[in-house]
């Protein structure tokens, strides 16, 4: 594959990519980019940050030929170009890894990597060559994958590496990563960063979008900040602090610390008894899990992702059948009840994968906001839906949750990634549940919104709701939870009261399986 890197740079520009004065107005009238000028130097890691809906993805989709700018110019290696399709972007050496993955689930990793530019031998697909190519690229850039595994069977971190390999296979020199860490565990993020550094070593340029300023500080050379469709500034990363970046993004001071009222723990709301779950493929992911969540407390579930947390939440929510064990809500048995029965019993659930399981993307915001309660007053009266009530509900929640959308009638699919999440959050937090399950609630949302979500979770707790918080972000668990439960290999390996002396390191030992509490100690505290 010829590398566009060999094309000489025109001498009079220090930039490999330059977007000048780009504006973009979507057909629905949303102005997503407003005279944005954005320039990237060769071999740098350039972070792009901004609140949900600030226009980051739009700017990058324009560079990748997926959207056409309304006005403005793009230069690649100093030459003016107009990019009409991803095909043309690829030809210019630009590759993009999207916020939502673009993979074919039943195809193997090798097939996904070569899709669209497959090696052939005697006019037939050369699958062996595809596997060899994938192996070779994977070794060269330190992006570990299993070429012959179907994508649907591998964890999300590996899927992401597949996306990067796809771009590299096509000869990308400039790699756009749109929120690559939003779906990764801290460990996977760490591996990704190692790979990114290696890519830059070998001459690639990386554009990196993220909401996590800590990551931005850690990985990038320069940062561009977007706010309200405009590019506020581009600065050297070393020259700014996280706080300054936050202020540039939001336009005000942001506090991510949490004020909680003293714990007033009441009766147990959720009682989980010896819960077991075996997947259809015969993998045992929950091995006898027992614990309680009480009124007025936040129980945090920590653990490296993939140790049964997802299954735990989905079994409680009625989305997967328990293989054995019991789930009680206020004494009522809801084991293997339907999701609807579970909800009617008083459970709200913010799912982890909100775009797939939390929202109907082609339906409007207003409709998505009532899907769990449309059949009750005030939304239905006398068997008929009440458009006014539905509309008012949408307007109220859009305002309360600062969802960036023209109105409640637009389809959720046309929102920015973070705003789609907020629609789900708004619905679940406004359900007035007895038990609130929040799985990775701040994943993919900006810091302003994270601050708001923290406030909401704590407010629910202070009002006597039992909150089950599952998060891969340890600092999030530590700052919110009253008690912390650690999961490892489908079992609870520790339960702590969240006292000031409890550290991330200590929890980390249990997460990695280095330490483990005795069964009695767990039973006594869980």
């Amino acid at each position, binding site marked *: 594959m010829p590398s566009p890197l060999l094309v000489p740079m025109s001498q009079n520009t220090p930039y490999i990519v330059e977007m000048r004065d780009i504006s973009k107005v979507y057909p629905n009238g949303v102005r997503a980019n407003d005279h944005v000028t954005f320039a990237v130097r060769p071999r740098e890691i350039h972070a792009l940050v901004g609140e949900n809906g600030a226009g980051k993805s739009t700017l990058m989709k324009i560079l990748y030929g*997926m959207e056409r700018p309304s006005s403005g110019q793009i230069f690649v290696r100093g030459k003016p170009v107009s990019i009409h*399709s*991803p*095909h043309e972007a*690829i030809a210019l050496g630009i590759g*993009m890894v*999207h916020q939502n*993955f*673009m*993979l*074919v*689930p*039943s*195809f193997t990793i090798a*097939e996904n990597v070569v*899709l*669209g*530019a*497959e090696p*052939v031998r005697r*006019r*037939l*697909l050369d699958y062996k060559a595809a596997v060899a190519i994938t192996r070779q690229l994977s070794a060269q850039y330190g992006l570990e994958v299993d070429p012959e595994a179907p994508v649907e069977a591998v964890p999300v971190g590996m899927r992401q590496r597949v996306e990067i390999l*796809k771009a590299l296979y*096509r000869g990308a020199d400039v790699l756009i990563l749109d929120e690559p860490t939003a779906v990764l565990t801290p460990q996977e993020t760490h591996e990704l960063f190692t790979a990114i550094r290696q890519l830059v070593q070998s001459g690639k340029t990386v554009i990196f979008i993220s909401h996590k300023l800590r990551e931005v500080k850690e990985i990038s050379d320069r940062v561009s900040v977007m706010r309200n469709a405009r590019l506020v500034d581009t600065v050297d990363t070393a020259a700014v602090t996280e706080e300054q970046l936050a202020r540039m993004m939001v336009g005000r001071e942001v506090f991510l610390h949490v004020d909680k009222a003293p714990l007033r723990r009441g009766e147990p709301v959720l009682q989980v008894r010896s819960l*077991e779950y*075996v997947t*259809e*493929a*015969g993998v*045992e992911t929950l*091995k006898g899990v027992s614990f309680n969540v009480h009124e007025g407390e936040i129980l945090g579930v920590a653990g490296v992702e993939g140790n049964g947390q997802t299954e735990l939440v989905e079994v409680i929510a009625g989305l997967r059948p328990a*293989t*054995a064990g019991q789930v009680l809500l206020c004494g009522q048995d809801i084991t293997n009840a339907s999701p609807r029965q579970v909800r009617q019993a008083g459970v709200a659930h913010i799912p982890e994968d909100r775009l797939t399981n939390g929202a109907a993307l082609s339906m409007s915001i207003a409709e998505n906001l009532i899907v769990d309660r449309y059949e009750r007053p005030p939304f239905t009266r006398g068997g008929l839906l009440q458009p006014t009530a539905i509309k008012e509900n949408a307007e109220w929640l859009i305002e309360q949750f600062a969802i960036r959308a023209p109105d409640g009638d637009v389809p959720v699919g046309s929102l920015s990634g973070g705003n789609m999440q907020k629609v789900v959050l708004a619905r679940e937090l406004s359900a007035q549940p007895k038990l609130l399950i929040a799985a990775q609630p701040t994943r993919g949302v900006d810091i302003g919104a994270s601050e708001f979500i923290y406030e909401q979770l704590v407010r629910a707790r202070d009002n006597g709701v039992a909150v089950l918080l599952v998060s891969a972000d340890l600092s999030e668990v530590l700052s919110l939870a009253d008690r912390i439960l650690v999961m490892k290999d489908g079992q609870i390996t520790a339960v702590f009261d969240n006292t000031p002396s409890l550290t991330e390191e200590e929890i980390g030992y249990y997460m990695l399986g280095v330490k483990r509490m005795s069964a009695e100690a767990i039973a006594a505290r869980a």
Partner: protein
Amino acid sequence: MEALNVIFSVAFLAAVLRVSTPLILPALGGLISELGGVINIALEGIMLVAACTGVLVSVWTQSAWLGALAGVAMGTFVALVLAFFHLNLKADLILAAIALNLLASGGTIFVVYLVTGDKSSTSRLVSGQMPFLSDFIPGVRALGEIGRLLDQNVLTYAAFVLTAVVALFLYRTRTGMHLRAVGENPEAARSVGINVRRMQYLALVLSGVLAALGGVYLSMGYVKFFARDMTGGRGFIALAAIYLGARKPLGVLIAALVFGAAEALSIQLGNLRVPTQLVQIIPYFATLAALVIYAVVQRQRALARQRAFVQSRAAR
């Protein structure tokens, strides 16, 4: 007892091959459209149009091959119309296909009436028939039972060859891979520069060609005339075969043969002393039963795996 003798005879096997052909061909076509993400519900109508066109053109040109060619061309044209309505004019795929099926049912018999003055069939015309193996190698007739088994229509042989060709196309060619990618995740396909609409056109057109071959076989191989609604739901049974065959070419072939066997059985039993109404429902009942059994087995397997696991753990 009589029935068992019938089933385990070579003649019965020959009958199975005969009646399976007009299921295998459209099922393969349907499979391609399904994998391309544009399931073709109009298989039935396409078969009818092809069957009718084939007969009339063969009468007119006095050539079975020209008739067959015209039949396939016409069937393919119907598939193209469906593709155009769905992919260009954004009509709902299912509704457009239903409209075409209704149009094909009424349209074919209308044309037959115009040509022959008969509203039920073309049996008064002398139409062509596609050759059988014995037309090429007269010796097979002398082989007795085995000869009767081998002496099938060229289109029956074609159905088996095409199963392999379709498998090769779908799994070993770039185009086939692109087609499957489009069917599974069009956004992903588009993002790597695959033309989604072009692939879906291709999927529908190929399904049209294969369904049309099935239609031509019905009126120019299985029998030698066109009759009103002579497809008798085969286009829909073919759809069931796609899913029962787990959306794989070989699986689809086997599923179509199973449905074919059920139909052959109903024909054979028709010659015995069994009420015809009961016999006639056999293929449809078999279709339904097969789908139910398939679903139940899948479920049982999953449950058994879970149970085995819990037990093995309890034992430890």
